[in-house]
């Protein structure tokens, strides 16, 4: 079956504005979008630039926008798209370096704000024990691969570039709700601001975008509840 790919092209070293280029490809319904990009790059247009590394939904480097929705190129098949015309763009809300490659500097700077590491003052006797019930609290949150699809899909972030974004919130949850973390307040403090958890307007775009099926808004709601409890 033949599909048309309309891909947004842009090279920051020479172009003023992005433009579109079309490629027609014979594909199988079970081909992944990443396979198609690879074929376009290898057979037709060597200068097409995109990130990918693992090709199996682990490294989080190939989040792109397909027909208006953020997804992982390596996790989506032609048959999932259900369209003969596939529009491919870089994920929005981030500066474009080249073609589908965006500048994630800001994304990772915001990630660091929430202290994305286990805060523990003393070394453990042997191991840091965690009960099954305590671990269950973070089961979903630990699955994040930092692809940025969620933060890039968030209207609150488009409108206010200072918003830390859902991925950073999720990471704050991941450590603040980890029974082994000794300073949950330090993670919470970083997001109890107008550019933090309170900027979330429960639009759920992030939940639709996440390739790991993480319900970010639920985690953000748990954080909001924690903030209110702290005040009482």
């Amino acid at each position: 079956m033949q599909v048309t790919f309309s891909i947004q092209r842009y090279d920051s070293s020479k172009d003023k504005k992005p433009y579109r280029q079309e490629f027609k490809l014979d594909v199988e319904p079970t081909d992944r979008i990443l396979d198609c990009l690879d074929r376009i790059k290898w057979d037709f247009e060597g200068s097409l630039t995109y990130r990918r590394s693992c090709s199996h939904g682990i490294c989080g480097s190939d989040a792109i926008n397909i027909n208006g929705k953020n997804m992982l190129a390596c996790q989506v098949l032609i048959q999932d798209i259900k369209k003969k015309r596939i529009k491919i763009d870089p994920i929005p809300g981030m500066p474009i370096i080249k073609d589908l490659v965006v500048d994630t500097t800001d994304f990772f700077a915001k990630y660091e704000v929430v202290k994305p590491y286990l805060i523990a003052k003393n070394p453990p006797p042997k191991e840091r024990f965690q009960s099954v019930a305590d671990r269950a609290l973070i089961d979903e949150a630990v699955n994040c691969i930092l692809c940025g699809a969620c933060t890039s899909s968030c209207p609150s972030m488009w409108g206010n570039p200072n918003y830390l974004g859902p991925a950073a919130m999720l990471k704050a949850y991941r450590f603040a709700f980890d029974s082994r973390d000794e300073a949950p307040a330090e993670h919470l403090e970083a997001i109890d601001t107008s550019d933090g958890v309170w900027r979330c307007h429960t639009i759920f775009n992030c939940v639709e975008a996440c390739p790991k099926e993480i319900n970010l808004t639920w985690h953000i709601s748990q954080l909001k509840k924690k903030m209110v409890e702290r005040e009482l």
Partner: protein
Amino acid sequence: MNFYQSGWTKVLTTYHRFAGSWAWIFHRISGLALTAYIFMHIIALSNLQKHKIDGGKAFNEEMALFSSPFFLVIEWLLFAFVLYHTLNGIRIVLVDFANGARYHKQLHYAVVTIGVIAFIAMGYVIFSHQVNKTVAMLF
């Protein structure tokens, strides 16, 4: 190096809209509409104060204006905004402070269903008197 970045208006108009995006857009539009309405409401009400000096003339005139069919339809539409904002407001509270984030789509279907039923019911309350009168006049 100058990197290109699309403005938020372009992103907002091109990104796919899911149920949750519509809920947010309608909530904002209804919130702004209600804010605009509350000012008009206060101005209209302050006119009624004149009953103290004109023996109720301005009051009666204004009430006659507001019970004209045109204003009844406008009020019915205002009710739609109040209804959506209130019901979806409750949905947002459930999402933020109960477990609603796990059921946000079902909650939105509930908002729309209850909203449509209440809107039609209010239509009956507002217009039944007028409709009955017209029907009685015709036959």
